């Protein structure tokens, strides 16, 4: 996946995530692709970064840059890490493709002090309209797959996600609504309007008391 927009600048939503990471912290990027975000964080914020990526091409490209990345996935490879191994665990646009999103979230907050999660919002009006009016499984700019070839097996709306966080006693520290280009929308990221308008949700999570 191409994550950069040329001359070393990050895709808008990745830049947003990168800005939330503390300099010098320990970061795990789950589904790190070719390591664009980790590389940026290493250069600009001196983080101790690790990555997990499914594709050989992605892992190869990342390791060839000198990054520490293992071939694996969120479902099988988070459980081994010890508690509190990372300051921040990042899961960008991958939650909907995991087999057990609930376990993935729990594991992220076990091994990390906080988690940054972004995902496509299935509650957006385009999706709702596609299903309600078109009578077809929605294919939009952010959800480009047909039903039969999609790797995305666990879609949720922003409201579904906040409900799950509540059930798991996960605290939402920050909620940001994004449009289809990853630009920030001027509204509460966890509210009803975001659930209707946002193409993506971006959440910073930690364990509740």
């Amino acid at each position, binding site marked *: 996946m191409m994550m950069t927009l040329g001359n070393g600048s990050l895709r808008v939503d990745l830049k947003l995530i990168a800005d939330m990471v503390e300099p010098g912290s320990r970061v795990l990027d789950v589904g790190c692709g070719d390591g664009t975000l980790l590389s940026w964080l290493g250069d600009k914020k001196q983080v101790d970064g690790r990555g997990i990526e499914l594709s*050989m091409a992605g*892992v190869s490209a*990342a*390791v*060839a840059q000198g990054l*520490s990345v*293992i071939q694996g996935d969120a479902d099988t490879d988070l459980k081994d890490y010890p508690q509190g191994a990372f300051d921040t665990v990042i899961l960008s646009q991958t939650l909907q493709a995991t087999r057990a999103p609930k376990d993935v979230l729990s594991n992220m907050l076990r091994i990390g002090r906080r988690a940054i999660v972004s995902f496509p919002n299935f509650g957006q009006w385009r999706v709702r309209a596609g299903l309600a009016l078109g009578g077809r499984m929605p294919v939009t700019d952010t959800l480009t797959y047909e039903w039969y070839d999609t790797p995305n097996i666990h879609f949720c709306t922003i409201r579904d996600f906040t409900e799950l966080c509540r059930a798991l006693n996960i605290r939402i520290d920050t909620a940001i609504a994004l449009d289809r280009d990853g630009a920030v929308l001027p509204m509460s990221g966890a509210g009803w309007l975001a659930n209707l308008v946002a193409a993506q949700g971006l959440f910073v999570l930690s364990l509740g008391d």
Partner: protein
Amino acid sequence: MSAAHDPDHNPAGLTVELGRDIPIRLDCGVEMDRVVVAYQTYGRLNADKSNAILICHALTGDHYVADPHPLTGKPGWWIDLVGPGKLLDTDRYFLICSNVLGGCMGTTGPKEVNPATGKPWGQSFPVITIGDMVQVQARLVDSFGIDQLFCVIGGSMGGMQVLEWCASFPERVFSAVPIATAARHSAQNIAFHEVGRQAIIADPDWRGGDYLEQGTYPKRGLAVARMAAHITYLSEAALHRKFGRNLQGDRDAFSYGFGADFQVESYLRHQGSTFVDRFDANSYLYITRAMDYFDLAAEHGGVLANAFKGTKTRFCVASFSSDWLFPTWESREVVHALNAVAANVSFVEIQSDKGHDAFLLDEPEFHATLGGFIEGAARHRGLTAKGGRP
């Protein structure tokens, strides 16, 4: 071409005697006070001795990594990787590779003469382990005054040694590359080794291991052992691609006999017959045994992660998709153990149909990944980048 344009480089290799001051105590309890180690070096050790890479060879390998083999004349077994400007750059790094304890290319082993008796060790040689091999390597590294190796790298049995190094001498390994290996030898692999050993032992010329004294050589047994083992180094796809069911060049029909009708038979026979010219049958018994005994978790209370507790080493684990001798899941077990101690680890499964032997062959994706890892590790170690020499 010799790997090093270094005028001091001796393609025949070097030897050193270890253990005289402090005997080497083997896992079996035997102490050895005269262990000769045959080794080779490439490149130059830098002033602060921070650029040394130890290469660990596989079961039937040796220290002729990038020099022609003295018996077969074939190019070094890792010539693709080792040389000036190559991935293991002899212009930047000081590379060391030694023939393992129990080997037959100059290091003390069953073929060599036991100084106490004046006769070849043969079956009186003590049974050795991967840990013993690594202990001897550590003594060799000591002899250079090197405290910490920049990297320890090896495939298959060499990878076992890499893991053993990381567990036994964690502070002496800055980075580690265990390739196509496992933290313990599987039942299936022990089984294949046993077939090979029994083939040797069943050869009447083995003479209870005393063949050197009795002037015989169990070449039929050793050749069969090699033939069986060689199959495990390949993959079905690679065998099919190379040979299919093709008959040998001069045949267009079956011979209705037991000659080598098929190309694959002729190939295996060739592998077997050339192997006996360069390898010692007793060495084969001892080294396969050492691999069988290897179980890093068992040495650490049954929990593999314990072997790596507190490690600061940077790891790059690699496996090959068609390797059924050391399948990817065994590498994954190592990775999971390293994750459990939050170690710094990279892992990639390279897509290849070349089987276990892929680690010795031209695999561009593997080389690109490995090159990036070494370069990244060099940066973290403060070793000068390419073209930026002081």
